[in-house]
């Protein structure tokens, strides 16, 4: 079985596709494409929820394999397609299933789409997805000069002006406790997510594992 067939099978076996009845055939009305911001801004030749549903219902393995390289990453995961589909298909869930199958089952995610380290660190080090320091003006110049100004006064504004006892620290969204962070890591360990990221960031994962006493 080639990569493409493996991917198709993994997608069809995803609980969100297999158990949720999200693909029921398509009458090609184009409602999903009409409301899809991905199709609107990238162009429907690159990303079309209609074609994705058709690929899955027609079991077009090669088509799916091709999507992983670029098209599938154009979805903004807004769910507009879910509300408009007259057949009750759910391209939203199918896209997520394809992305996950590509990453966790078949390991064919293109390099540019791998979870970046800073993001993984935020979740595993402090237990929150984002931190006040994440949008550094250096990496976010498109937020403008006013943001740079706020950023440099962040500490003052957050801790002195708007004093909110639970939201004091600058490296995490709220003051998460060490126990909570420990539990977060344990969940990633027992569900195999930590082991999975070993291939992308071996040093960091080893460090976490050593700290928590997980087996390698």
């Amino acid at each position, binding site marked *: 079985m080639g990569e493409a067939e493996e991917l198709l099978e993994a997608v069809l076996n995803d609980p969100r596709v297999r158990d949720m009845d999200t693909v029921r055939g398509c009458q090609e009305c184009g409602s999903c494409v009409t409301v899809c911001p991905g199709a*609107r801004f990238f162009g429907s030749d690159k990303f079309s929820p209609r074609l994705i549903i058709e690929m899955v219902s027609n079991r077009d393995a090669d088509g799916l394999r091709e999507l992983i390289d670029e098209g599938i990453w154009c979805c903004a995961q807004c769910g507009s397609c879910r509300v408009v589909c007259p057949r009750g298909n759910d391209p939203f869930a199918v896209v997520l299933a394809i992305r996950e199958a590509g990453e966790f089952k078949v390991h064919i995610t293109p390099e540019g789409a791998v979870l970046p380290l800073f993001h993984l660190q935020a979740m595993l080090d402090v237990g929150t997805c984002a931190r006040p320091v994440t949008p550094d003006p250096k990496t976010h110049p498109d937020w403008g000069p006013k943001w740079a100004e706020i950023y440099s006064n962040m500490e003052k504004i957050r801790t002195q002006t708007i004093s909110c006892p639970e939201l004091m620290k600058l490296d995490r969204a709220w003051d998460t406790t060490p126990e909570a962070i420990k539990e977060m890591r344990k969940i990633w360990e027992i569900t195999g997510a930590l082991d999975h990221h070993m291939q992308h960031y071996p040093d960091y994962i080893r460090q976490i594992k050593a700290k928590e006493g997980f087996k390698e």
Partner: protein
Amino acid sequence: MVVNVEELKAEWLPPKDFTLSEEGHDLSLADEVRKILGGERIDLCFRCGTCTAGCTTGDRLTEYNPRVIINMAKEGMWNELAELGDVIWQCVSCNKCVQHCPKDARPADIVRAVWTVIRHRLPQETEHNPRLVLEGLYMGQIAEKGRVDETKLARDFYGKMGRRLTLDDMMFGIKKVGLTRLIRTSKAPNWDKVKPTVKKLIEERGK
């Protein structure tokens, strides 16, 4: 990821289909096509796709899709049409689509009408298009003599394209069409009688 605002500024393009409703819907394009001989049949198309299914070029070159080209013109998608670039000129005039079309819309003729519109709208870009140069020479010969002198055609075409006719080319030509046809240069019988009509027709097509 470091993002440079200046770079972003350079990268900025208005999103595709941003205001398709007003600017993108250039319906005058279809009107121009309708005015050209053959193009008036554009309204007959009901987008069944038979032309594409049987297309000789489309079989080899998936980007060439007569149904899409005709309907891009009909819907006024001028930018997309222009973006197709060289693809659009690849019709080999086999006229299979004309045979197949259930509504007798003569797709090949509509595509030709679309070419004419593109030629009018983009005179400079299409001036040196090999396909159009060859067609111009071919039609010119037909209009003059009612016959095509293939040697002359090849020589003229190569000349216009800035390439010289080599011995190999000549040998290839002889092998392909035979020596007798290569040297026949006389006019078709009674050509002078038909000539004005044919000339008029050719002119009308290119108008």
